[in-house]
C-alpha cells in the first residue's frame, strides 16, 4: 500500500527475496547453535554429572526416536501438511510387532512387520489427504484415534513382553563404546533426509508444493503424489521409531509413545520450519532435537519438576518463533 512509487530511488528487484530468505534461514540455525552451546554450558556448570560420556549417551535416548519422525514431519510441514497420527502409528506398529513376536517371529521378521505397519498407516493417511483431499489435520486426528484404538482393542490392559533377546539391540544396543545404535541411526537418517530435502528435485518439489500448490501443479509437479510420498515417509519413520522404542522398552502397551506427536511438531517448529509451510531445513530440526533432549536431561539432572521443563520448552518455542517476527517487520517496512 505505502508503495515507493513516488520515491525517486531505484527499487530492488525481488530476486533479493531469495537470498534474504536464505540468510534468515542461516541465521536461524546460528541462533539454534548459540542456544545449544548455552544449554550445554549451563548444564555442564550446574551439574557435576553432566560431562560424563555414559550420561550424555543416556541423554541421547531422550530425542533420537522422536527426531527420526521429526525429519519426515519437517518435510511434510514444509509441504503444507501435517501428520498428527505418528505416535498412534508407533502404537499400532509396536502392537503388530508384539503380536508377531508371540507367534514366534524372529528379529528380522519383527523389524519388517514394524516397518510395513508404519508404511501401511502412512499410505492410508496419504490416501485420505492426497486422493480424497481431506485436510490433513482432520484426517490424521481421525487416524490417530483409529490406529491407537486398534491397539487398545487388541491389547486392552495387557502387554506384549515376549520379544527375542536379539531384538533389544535396536533400542539398547551400542555400536561402539557409548555410541548407541539409535544415535547412529539418527545420524544416518539426518543425512538421508538432508540429501532428500536439500539436494534432490523431490526436495525442491516439496518446497514448491508448500509455497503454492496451485503454481506447483501448473509447473508440472504432481502435487498429490508428492504429498502421498511424504505421508509414506512419516509412516515409515514412525515404523522405524516403533522398532527402536519397542526394543528399548522391551514391551508394548497401547499407551506407548502417548503424546509424542506434539513433541515432534514442537521439534519441527523449534527447528525453524514454518508451520504454514514453504520453508525450513533438516539442519534446524537436528539442532532442535538435540536442544530439547539436552534441556530435558539437564533439568532431570537437577531434579527440576517436569512441569518446569514443559514451561521452559513452551517459552523457548514462543521466543524462537517470536524473535523473527519482532525483527523482520522493521526490516520489511523501513526501506
Amino acid at each position, binding site marked *: 500500500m505505502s508503495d515507493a512509487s513516488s520515491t525517486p530511488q531505484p527499487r530492488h528487484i525481488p530476486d533479493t527475496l531469495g537470498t534474504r530468505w536464505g540468510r534468515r534461514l542461516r541465521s536461524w540455525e546460528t*541462533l539454534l547453535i*548459540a*542456544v545449544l552451546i*548455552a*544449554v550445554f554450558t*549451563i548444564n555442564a*556448570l*550446574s*551439574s557435576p*554429572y*553432566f560431562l*560424563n560420556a*555414559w*550420561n550424555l549417551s*543416556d*541423554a541421547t*535416548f*531422550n530425542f533420537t526416536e522422536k527426531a527420526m519422525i521429526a525429519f519426515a514431519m519437517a518435510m511434510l510441514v514444509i509441504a503444507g501438511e501435517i501428520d498428527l497420527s505418528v505416535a498412534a502409528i508407533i502404537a499400532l506398529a509396536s502392537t503388530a510387532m508384539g503380536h508377531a513376536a508371540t507367534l514366534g517371529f524372529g528379529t528380522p521378521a519383527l523389524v519388517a512387520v514394524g516397518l510395513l505397519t508404519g508404511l501401511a498407516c502412512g499410505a492410508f493417511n496419504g490416501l485420505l489427504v492426497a486422493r480424497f483431499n481431506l485436510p490433513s489435520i482432520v484426517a490424521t486426528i481421525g487416524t490417530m484415534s483409529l490406529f491407537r484404538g486398534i491397539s487398545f482393542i487388541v491389547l*486392552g*490392559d495387557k*502387554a506384549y*513382553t515376549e520379544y527375542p533377546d536379539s531384538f*533389544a539391540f535396536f*533400542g*539398547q544396543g551400542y555400536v561402539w563404546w557409548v555410541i548407541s545404535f539409535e544415535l547412529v541411526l539418527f545420524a544416518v537418517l539426518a543425512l538421508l533426509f538432508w540429501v532428500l530435502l536439500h539436494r534432490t528435485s523431490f526436495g525442491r518439489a516439496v518446497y514448491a508444493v508448500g509455497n503454492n500448490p496451485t503454481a506447483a501443479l501448473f509447473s508440472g509437479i504432481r502435487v498429490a503424489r508428492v504429498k502421498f510420498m511424504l505421508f509414506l515417509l512419516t509412516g515409515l519413520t514412525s515404523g522405524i521409531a516403533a522398532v527402536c*522404542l519397542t526394543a*528399548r*522398552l*522391551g*514391551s508394548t*502397551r497401547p*499407551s*506407548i*509413545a*502417548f*503424546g*509424542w506427536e506434539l513433541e515432534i511438531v514442537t521439534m519441527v517448529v523449534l527447528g525453524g520450519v514454518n508451520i504454514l509451510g514453504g520453508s525450513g531445513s533438516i539442519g534446524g530440526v537436528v539442532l532442535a532435537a538435540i536442544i530439547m533432549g539436552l534441556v*530435558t*536431561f539437564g*533439568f*532431570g*539432572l*537437577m*531434579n*527440576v*519438576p*517436569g*512441569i*518446569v*521443563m*514443559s514451561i*521452559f520448552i513452551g*517459552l*523457548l518455542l514462543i*521466543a*524462537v518463533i517470536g*524473535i523473527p517476527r519482532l525483527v523482520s517487520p522493521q526490516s520489511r517496512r523501513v526501506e
Partner: protein
Amino acid sequence: MGLMKKLMLGAAAVSLMMTGAAQAENKRIALVVKALGIGFFEAAAKGAEEAAKELGDVEIIYTGPTDTTAEGQIEVINALIAQNVDAIAVSANDRDALVPALKKAMERGITVISWDSGVAPEGRMMHLNPSSNPLIGNMIIKLAADNMPEGGEVAVLSASATATNQNTWIEEMNKVLPNYKGITVVSTVYGDDKADKSYTEAQGLMKAHPNLKAIIAPTSVGIVAAAQAVTDAGMVGKINVTGLGLPSEMAGHIKSGASKSFAIWNPIDLGYAATMIAYNLETGKAEAKPDAEIGMGRMGNVKLDANNEGAMADPFVYDASNIDAFKDIF
C-alpha cells in the same frame, strides 16, 4: 538472542537454587511417582520426608514426569542413574517398560524398589503393595457390617465386569462373608467407572431391593455416584454407602451421612514405608528375598512373599473424625 540467554540463565539460576542444598554424605533416595501434581503422590512425598527426618542422614529427591507415561518416567530414571543416587523407589506407569531402565540402575549399584504400582520382578528388588487383596476384601465388608449390627442386605457396585482389581477384591470379600453373620450380598452391578452409569445402577439397586442397608463400591467413581444417588433418593440414614474412595471426593458425603466410613490406603504411610524400606536395603540392614522381613519404622515390618512382594497394612479407614485432615491431601 539476548532474550534467549536471559531465559536460559534465569532457568538455570532457579534450578541451582532448588538443588543448592544437595549434600554428598547423605543417602539420596529418589521417590519417583507416576506424575507430579497428583495429590496422592504429594502426600506420599510428605511421608517420605517424615521418614527422612526420622532417619537423619537421608535426602529425598521427589520427582516424576509431567504426565503418566512410561517414556517420561524412563527419562527421569536415566537422569537419576546419571546422578548416581543411592536408591530409587518408583510407582510405575508401566509394569514392563521400566524394566530395562531399572535393570541398568541396579547394575550400577542403585537400590531399586517399587511401591503402589509395581514393576515386573526382574526390574526391582522388592515391591510394596499398599495393602493386600484379602485385607481389602475383608475391609470393605467389615465397613458395611460395622454399621449393621442386626445384619441385612448389601449390594456391590463395582467398576467394569472385566476390572481385574475389583473382581479380585469382591472374590476375597465373598470368601470372608461367612464371618459376618446375617449379612447377605443380594446383587453385584457394574457402573464401568463412569459417574452417570454408576448413578443409574445405584438407583436400580435401591428400587430392586427395598430392604437394602448398604452399598459397597470398591471404586472411587462408584462410591461417589452411589452416595449421590442415595442422597438424591432421600435414603440417607437408611442406606449406608461404603467401599474404597478418595477423601477429597467423599468429604461431603461423610458430612451428610450418606457414607459413614470408607477406606483407602494412606499415601503418607505408603511414602514413609517405601522410604524406610529403600533405606534399610541400601544400608544393608535388610535383604530383599522371599520370606524376609523388612522394617518400615512406625509401620512395623513387611513380610515378602515368593515374588519379593509385600503388603504394608490394612486399608486406612476414613470417617467423620479424620476426613477434614485428609480431604485437602488427595
